[in-house]
């Protein structure tokens, strides 16, 4: 059976949701896997809901559109409501408990629930919450390596100061998951 991981990243505009999906695809490319990234490209604005999709596979990817993801990285409550029932059975939900209230325990899926926004804030930049979540996600799934993600951040982000905080956030996220 072909190895294939479909992940949806969701949150509000400004949380770096599109960047998150792009970075996952960039990591996959760096590891010579087939990959496709697709953003939600409607009237997305800062504060509105945004999501992006990334597929990593050992075979060419026909359509980049995901209806039932293997994993979802969910950064706020409206996104949680939108995607909680879409995740495949046995899949993974990575949830930002800073911005999602009592969510209960979704049935039939694995759950990583951490206060990504608060962790990022304590690291010095609230906007790096997406990287904390990414660290947790790739540590848990091993879909790409943390090392590759660090390299991808180097390549993607031009501002040196931002590279440092994003790497720190990624490593912090990875350290919180077994």
């Amino acid at each position, binding site marked *: 059976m072909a190895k294939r991981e479909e992940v949806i990243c969701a949150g509000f505009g400004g949380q770096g949701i599109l960047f998150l999906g792009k970075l996952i695809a960039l990591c996959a*490319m760096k590891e010579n896997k087939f990959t496709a990234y697709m953003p939600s490209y409607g009237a997305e604005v800062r504060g509105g809901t945004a999501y992006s999709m990334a597929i990593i596979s050992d075979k060419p990817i026909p359509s*980049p559109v995901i209806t039932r993801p293997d994993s979802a990285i969910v950064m706020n409550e409206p996104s949680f409501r939108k995607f909680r029932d879409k995740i495949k059975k046995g899949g993974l939900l990575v949830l930002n408990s800073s911005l999602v209230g009592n969510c209960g325990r979704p049935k039939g899926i694995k759950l990583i629930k951490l206060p990504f926004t608060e962790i990022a804030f304590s690291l010095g930049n609230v906007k790096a919450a997406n990287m904390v979540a990414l660290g947790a996600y790739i540590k848990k799934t091993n879909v790409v390596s943390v090392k590759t993600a660090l390299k991808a951040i180097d390549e993607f982000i031009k501002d040196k100061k931002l590279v440092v905080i994003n790497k720190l956030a990624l490593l912090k996220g990875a350290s919180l998951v077994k």
Partner: protein
Amino acid sequence: MKKVLMSGNEACGEGAMIAGCRFYAGYPITPQNELTEYMARRMPETGGVFIQSESEVAAINMVFGASLTGARAMTSSSSPGISLKQEGISYMAACELPAVIINMVRGGPGLGNIAPAQSDYFQATKGGGHGDYHLIVLGPSSAQEMMELTVLAFDLADKYRTPVLILGDGLIGQMMEPVLVNSRQSLVVSKKLTTKNWVLTGCKGRDPRIVKSLWLNDGALEAFNRKLGEKYEHIKRAETRYEAVRTEDADIVFVGYGSVARILRAAVARLREEGIRAGLLRPITLWPFPQAAIRQLSKKTKKFVVVEMSMGQMLEDVELAVAGNAKIEFYGRPGGGIPHEEEIYQRVIARHKVPKQSKK
């Protein structure tokens, strides 16, 4: 060769840079804005001209003017914007002016939506504007092809003195995937193509030249239309492009282009695993349409399945090509619906009664 993660829109822009595009004019519209943005950034870096025009009509007429002076020129838009450009496109076809026009198709008619669609096939391949003309129309199915076909589009436009249209869609434009980018040195634009003896650059020291689309004298337009017709016949013979995937022994041949072809390719692989002999014919030039290749296949294939993100437009060209030689089924997802490989697979499996193979 460098591997870069790029959207189809960006890959198209990079293709234009490789081809030596010197002039771009466009007006924003989703889902092709990243292309306009890319050109805004890259054109000034190379001494080219970027203009965000006041309208789509202005953009196509600016391209008209730039092309008249010999510059490699391009504009881009999405469906409603391309409708607005049709007058200019017809005039350029009449003046035999090279240009590259990008249509990242969205759902229609009208303002429609911003989701991927293939519902501008008729407009692109059957004329679009008024008068007796055709555009060369290319249908890319990946970010890689978005780049390569853009380079080809500039070459074909110069070679035949005709506008060339690239028919992408929101999916091809927005999706990012790895692209192998040719280094600039490896793709030298042929001098023969860019040396133009018809351009209007001021006639000091030479005879004046005329480029026009008005032919009032008795019989003049008829003669010109015949000349254009001959050019189109030549293009049909020389430039028809398609890809055939496992069609040699196929009982079922899918026909689809652009993003749909990606999905059909996966469906073919899956059906083959089940022992169903499926194949795919993917037109790369939508005009000229690979009519002869499909007619040839229709003599040995039992069934064609045409899949489009529309209510059935290319379907008519397949019907003409098959000419009653084989059965044709159609499956369409209009208005922004994107078919999934699973849905194609299930459809074919359901209709294709496969005897269960007994285990040995």
